[in-house]
């Protein structure tokens, strides 16, 4: 699968703090999730690709164009939905989006027509003549998506697109993102710390932690690592039980309170867990077979969440 973005040994430093450290990765075409806890370097990576931040070292290409040498050609082919609220003061939605279209190179009449179309598409058709400053948080998220879409980019960067949205708005936004990626043939990179958002909208994931790539690949293959996942709750010395499981080569992550998720390889089964528990003198109070989720991938890559 061809890559739309590639980074080769890219490092970014803010003062003494490394935001990205020697990152080498490729984003395949389609919908790719950029996942990681806050401060992992996701936004820095996007801002570096946009040319906002100059890397200390390394090379980056977007759509086969070098970021350092062709920033304008790249920006004419990408759309960027920033994490923070952002709008042009004093404009209503349709003027704002049309203005963004013109800034991206669309002729005036085409930009206005596209503005109406994308505002309907993102669900702001009825509110398109309202001043953007009067919009709710959810509406501001939608208009940021509209301004990123108006010039019909080949690649979309979405930085935390569901931030501050209520559950209904969030579902609608995710549905839009999914539709863009899967039905409109647009490549997108979705940066988020929310696992369900990435799992719902993306086919690939790149997990970041502390400025480095923790793991990367198609979500399905990362989830299906062979073996089964069990939710386990025990009574007794939980720490000794976890240590024994890890000593036996099993992945084990605590997810909430005393419930843990244990990855059991194909050559072993649930009986093995009972046996280890008996050896460690703990009681198994709850054991349920589960399916691997992106949360498990994330936990394995980054650590307990």
């Amino acid at each position, binding site marked *: 699968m061809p890559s739309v973005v590639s980074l080769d040994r890219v490092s970014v430093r*803010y*003062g*003494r*703090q490394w935001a990205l450290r020697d990152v080498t990765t490729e984003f395949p075409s389609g919908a790719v999730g950029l996942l990681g806890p806050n401060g992992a370097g996701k936004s820095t990576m996007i*801002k570096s690709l*946009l*040319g*906002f*931040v100059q890397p200390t070292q390394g090379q980056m290409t977007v759509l086969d164009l070098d970021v350092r040498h062709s920033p*304008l*050609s790249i*920006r*004419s082919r*990408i759309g*960027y939905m*920033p994490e*923070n*609220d*952002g*709008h*042009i*003061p*004093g*404009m209503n939605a349709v003027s704002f989006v049309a*203005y*963004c279209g*013109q*800034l*991206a*190179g*669309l*002729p005036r009449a*085409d930009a206005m027509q*596209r503005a109406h*179309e*994308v505002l*309907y*598409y993102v669900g702001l*058709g009825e509110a398109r003549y309202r001043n953007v*400053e009067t919009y709710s948080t959810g509406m501001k998220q939608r208009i940021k998506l509209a*301004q990123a*879409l108006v*010039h*019909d980019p080949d690649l979309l960067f979405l930085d935390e697109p569901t931030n501050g949205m209520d559950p209904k708005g969030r579902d609608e936004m995710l549905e839009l993102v999914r*539709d*863009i990626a899967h039905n*409109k*043939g647009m490549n997108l990179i979705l940066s988020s710390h929310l696992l369900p958002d990435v799992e719902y909208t993306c086919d690939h994931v790149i997990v970041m932690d502390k400025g480095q790539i923790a793991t990367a690949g198609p979500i399905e293959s990362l989830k299906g690592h062979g073996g089964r996942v069990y939710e386990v709750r025990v009574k007794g010395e939980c720490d000794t039980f976890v240590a024994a499981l890890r000593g036996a080569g099993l992945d084990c992550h605590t997810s909430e309170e005393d419930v843990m998720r244990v990855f059991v390889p194909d050559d072993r089964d649930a009986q093995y867990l009972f046996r280890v528990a008996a050896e460690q003198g703990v009681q198994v109070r709850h054991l349920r077979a589960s399916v691997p989720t992106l949360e498990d991938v994330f936990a394995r890559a980054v650590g307990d969440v």
Partner: protein
Amino acid sequence: MSPIHDQGYRRYGGRREPEGRRWWVIARAGLMARIRERRVIAVLLAAWLPFLVRAVQIYASANFQQVAFLAPTPEMFREFLGQQEIFVFIVSIVIGAGLIADDRRANALQIYLSKPLTRVEYIAGKLVTLGAVLTFVTWLPAMLLLILQMLFAGSTKFLTEHLFLIPAITLFAAVQVLVSAFAMLALSSLSKSRRFVAMMYAGILFFTAAMYQALRQITLSTAWAAISPRDTMSVIADGIFRIQGTRAIPFPAAVVAVGVLIAASIWILERKVRGVEVVT
């Protein structure tokens, strides 16, 4: 074909404008937004009142012998542009203070700079927005006065005798516009509040003028005029309009002072107009 219009997302296959013209999109939008504001219209109308007074003066001197002493001279055009400085100041505050400050407040810089335009184009667009309005209250009325003089006098004698007035008006108006626009944009890029920017601009102008007067009294030297943009501009105006007399500082020194002010403004703009503000 479906009878219902598809309101879903569609790909765009139309024409795209070449790069390098985005500054005009910014300037046009900025101008259109400003001239819709009532207070801007009020300021612009007020800024043309001195033009009306001067037009009446030229008409009267050309048609009534009793007031022939009011006939225009090159000094009159220099005085006119000097009088317009108050409107240059007001227009700079009313229009210029929010040009970048408002964008910073609304996080618009990241929107602008994620589009295919350079920081230079962004600044040029803002500069043209303010510069065009400043030109409207300086160069345009001064040139119209020159044309009116010809029309009312019914001859081109005055103009042919003082042909240097055309480049002089153009050059001094350009200096006025560039100095005010660059200084205001630089200040506007330093804050998210247009009120604070307006106070800074007024404060700097008045403070440097007062400082010059105080230092002149203390040191008995007029060389301190270089720290006051208002007094420096006065020296430049006298030089351009060939007004004889003593000047606070030599003309080349005034030009250098103005150059330093513009260079400092460009340096501030280069540092502050960025897609992301990195705080380390």
